[in-house]
């Protein structure tokens, strides 16, 4: 009999994932519980690469929650929906991985595979998760949110402003974790925010932070066309997976 995907905490994780958090406080609660479970996952336990990502994501989401309470955003309805929808995709990926589903996004499975080792450094691990989450999940989360709110991704709108504000939260939180590796992190963030093509074309400086937003606009335009949408999904998944593997390769360790 094969061992369960989540080892000794399998049952706990499956039970946790059975719940679908519907608001930001619930998402934070969910991530907190998940963190407690992930660090108990053998063989790596405390240095589980997914836990490295989850911890960073929890920190960021908690800051978003504080921002919501503190009236930091112009359109909290939009931002809360986006945050919940965004997190749901991470939980979905974990659920699919749990079921060994072939539908697990490659962007995520390259990180999940590493839970069994070999050990990866915490920074690149967290970065690989951020990569999957931003470069693959975020554009779709944006599109779903806009669709639900009967709004649309328009540059310069209130929602766009709030969206960019999240980037500031990422920027705020990440330096705290990086312990002085500023330049390398900056490079990494820039890489993460650009898809590989853009990065190669050296066009990143102007709009790196906005790549997910622009991808969302692209998907938005073809969202009624299942084929085109699927095509876009595959493209994003492939790009994010390629970058994720790079980050988890020995090359990624240079960041640490």
């Amino acid at each position, binding site marked *: 009999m094969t061992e369960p995907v989540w080892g000794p905490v399998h049952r706990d994780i499956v039970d946790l994932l059975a719940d679908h958090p519907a608001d930001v406080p619930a998402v934070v609660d969910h991530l907190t519980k998940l963190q407690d479970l992930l660090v108990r996952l053998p063989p790596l336990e405390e240095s589980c690469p997914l836990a490295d990502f989850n911890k960073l994501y929890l920190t960021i989401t908690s800051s978003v929650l504080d921002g919501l309470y503190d009236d930091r955003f112009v359109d909290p309805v939009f931002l809360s929906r986006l945050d919940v929808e965004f997190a749901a995709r991470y939980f979905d990926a974990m659920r699919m991985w749990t079921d060994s*589903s072939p539908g697990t996004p490659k962007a995520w499975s390259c990180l999940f595979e590493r839970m069994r080792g070999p050990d990866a450094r915490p920074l690149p691990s967290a970065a690989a998760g951020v990569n999957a989450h931003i470069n693959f999940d975020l554009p779709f989360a944006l599109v779903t949110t806009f669709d639900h709110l009967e709004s649309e991704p328009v540059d310069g709108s209130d929602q766009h402003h709030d969206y960019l504000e999240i980037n500031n939260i990422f920027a705020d939180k990440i330096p705290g974790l990086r312990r002085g590796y500023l330049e390398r992190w900056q490079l990494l963030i820039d890489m993460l925010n650009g898809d590989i093509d853009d990065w190669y074309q050296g066009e990143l400086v102007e709009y790196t932070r906005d790549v997910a937003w622009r991808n969302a606009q692209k998907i938005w335009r073809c969202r009624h066309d299942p084929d085109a949408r699927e095509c876009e999904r595959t493209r994003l998944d492939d790009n994010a997976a390629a970058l994720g593997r790079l980050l988890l390769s020995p090359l990624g360790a240079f960041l640490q």
Partner: protein
Amino acid sequence: MASDVDTAPLVGRAGLVQTVRSALLGDVAHGQTAAVFLTGESGVGKTRLLGEIGDRLRDQGALVLTGSCLDIGDASPLHPLLQALRRFDADLSAAQSRTSSAVRGLLQMFADETAGPDGAGALLERVSRGLHLIAEGRPLVLILDDLQWVDRSTRQLLLYLLAGLGDLQLSVLAAVRAESLQGAHPLRRVLTELRRLRTVRVLDLAPLDRAGTEELAAAVVGRPLPAEAAEQVWQRSGGNPFVIEELARDLRDGRVGLSETLREIFLDRVDALPQHAHAVVHAVAAGVEPVQHWLLAEVLRLPEEELIDAARAAVAHRLLVGADDGYRLRHRLVAEVLAHELLPAERSGLHRRYAEALTAAPGELHQARLAHHWRLAGEPARALPAAVAAAQEAERLHGYAEAHRHWSVALQLAGDSGSLAVDRVELLGNAAEAAHHCGEHARALTLLEELAEVQGGAPTCALHIRRARYLAAAGRSALAEEEYQRALEAADCSPRDRATAAARLAELLLYLGRYADAGQRAREALALAADAEDSATEVVLASSALGFSDAYLEDPDAGLAVMRDALDTAERAGQPEDVACAYLHLAELLTGPLNVLEEGVVVARRGAERVAELGLGRTWGTRLLAIAINGLFRVGQWAEAEKVVAAALRHRPSGADAVELLLARCRLSVGYGDIDAASRDLDAVATLLAGGGARHVIPLLTLRSGLAMWEGRHDVARQAVQRGLTESRSDDVTILSALVWHGLRAEAEAHASRTVAVDPTAVRRLRDVAERVARKSASAAGPVRSVVDGFLALCAAEVSRLDGSDPELWAASVAEWDRRNHPYPAAYSRLRQAEALLARRSRVATAGKLLRAAYEVAQGLGAVPLTSEIRELAGRARVSLEEREQTDTARGAGPGEVADDELATLTAREREVLALVAEGLTNREIGQRLFISERTIGVHVSHIFDKLQVRTRVQASAIHLRNRRG
């Protein structure tokens, strides 16, 4: 052969079938709704399960309608429902003529539908009436396959029916491909919201496990598989039943070696097909399923017998399925395999033959299919008129999202064909309007830009107004304002256009809270309208902007006078919509900023009657009644409000109107303490909001927390408020202040009841928000400030409850709500003021008066939970609530207290103390609870011990428990 198709048993799903059956039928209370959504990957067996469950439910006496959604992307609104009705009708026997005529009646209704205002809502109502007739009292089950391709109209219909607005006992069973939900599918959000409800289940259909895989494979093969083969099937299928079945069949039929992939299995089969069967499979793949036999015959031009042989061969090779309504590919995966097997010329040839055959024979989805086939046949000029007709057809059924897509295709086709036969300006105009209607604002604006270019020259006044309207709808107010300015300055602006632009601009400014500017524009608009013909609409619009801006600028009389004049103007001009609109604004003005509730209610009810005479009862009448209901609730005429709710719901409103009414009814139920009714309405609102409508989320959450507090679930109340705080805009001060009060009250209740720990972080956040609200409302208009002040007074007083409730703060709250003439919150505040006074053991007589006043109001309202809290407090404090009762208690024993047990020797007070001892409270705590000193409690306790002849609290508690009645 054909019978081979479904012989494999259903393995590993018995539990699921049972769960779904009871969720959809067994556990559904009469007149209620339920839904199960099955998600799972392709081939996991969703369709099979739908069929299986449908059969069982039919056997149990349910009326089952089944339809599938289509993936041609440009289908027609409500297609799955229409298909389900047609299929159902075809299956009815001659003996069921009554049902059959009901089905045909409903289908005819769709055929007769015409585009018009409120069309979509009225259509929903007629559909539910039609389904009612068909069901004839039986539970109705609607089964929909491939829900990932559902059109927007069907989605809205489902939510409307599931919210119970159709007044039907209805269950929905739908299958969704899990893969589709991974992208940016609109159903994702819908399912996230719905899965929280008690009546909805979202079940994920997992692949089979190892044992299930072997069982299924063995059943197909007819004997258990050898270990090695079993392992291979398991490895290659991953437990996917569709794949298992196909692999096992290859094994059974001795095909050499297992194919590596499903693709190979099907490619081998396609290769092995006889020539005509090959053609059949490709033709069906190019068609829109189900492909009827006659159509296939036309497309393939085969003699009947050869066609039948070919179709049989394709079925035998498990590539095709034949049913009464036509042929389908066996699985979506087959279509994917076939997609690359034809030359482009072959494929367009097939599409051309489809288009030709369909042209001669109008049928289901006629225009949409024609457009689809002609386009793929590479004939844009012939596809164009069909696309235009399909767009008009969609608009006739109020499916603007679908119409917009057809118009967009038409525009593209017009470009490709270079056809001069169509007016591009008209196409662009229609496309833009449809985009605007279905919320695609950016697209609508782009189309308008293009329209301006095609027209050439300076943009016209009408174009500016239109652009401004779209911008305002997209929430881009600053740009909309500029655009109205340009309209006013345009050279070709007629007096009436000018009046329109000014009136709309005034409305926009009012919405932005710029009252002085709004008032000025409104006066301008009124002056312009005076010189223009037929301008009652503009007069009503401008007057309402002026009326509200005056009221907000604290000149209520002037505002009211303007609005009354506007009603007269509208009545004289005689346009029903104008009259309705004038009534609505007048009633809103009175019940809103002016807070003249009684008169507002009278106007709203008179207006509702009047607009019903004018034929607008369903829409405007409902809205007016909603205003009346909320007014009646606030002035404390709950019984009357309840009657009006029932009357309004008889119109079966939909969308935002329905949400308003359900929230109003829920507010009453929460006040009455009718937990079931309130929960049902909350679920119904949540169901409707799953389809969109962020505006109503905060009122929903406020009610959810109010209800949870009556249930003693203060943590649930806290969660609802926290969600609300993270999802509300800080400029909605009124709504936010009510929410914050609920949050602070939940913490105070948690503190008082000790059932849930107080969350200090939550308290701090709530106080922060309350301060922010106070700051923001300081600069708001007087009427807004006045409402907010009432809630802020409550907030301040609730905070004091966490740390020795302050009677002065409660007195301030009483004064606020008395001033505004809202008896319910005033009575609540009196209760708390009395409680605070009693806790300080000061001014007991005042506390008694307050409690009696609160009691009288609460009883008059029928506010059960509030009444019982007042009674409970009065009981503990020994305050009598009625004059007559006072003489009773003066004589000694409380009313109704029979003591013929071991406790007979105790006084009523001692029994009360004993009950609290048994709860484990200390003397100090009991003293606080009963408003007497700790020392007095000590005396009571020692008397109790003496009388019961015990020495410990535990022994005393045991006697109490033994003698407790009930």
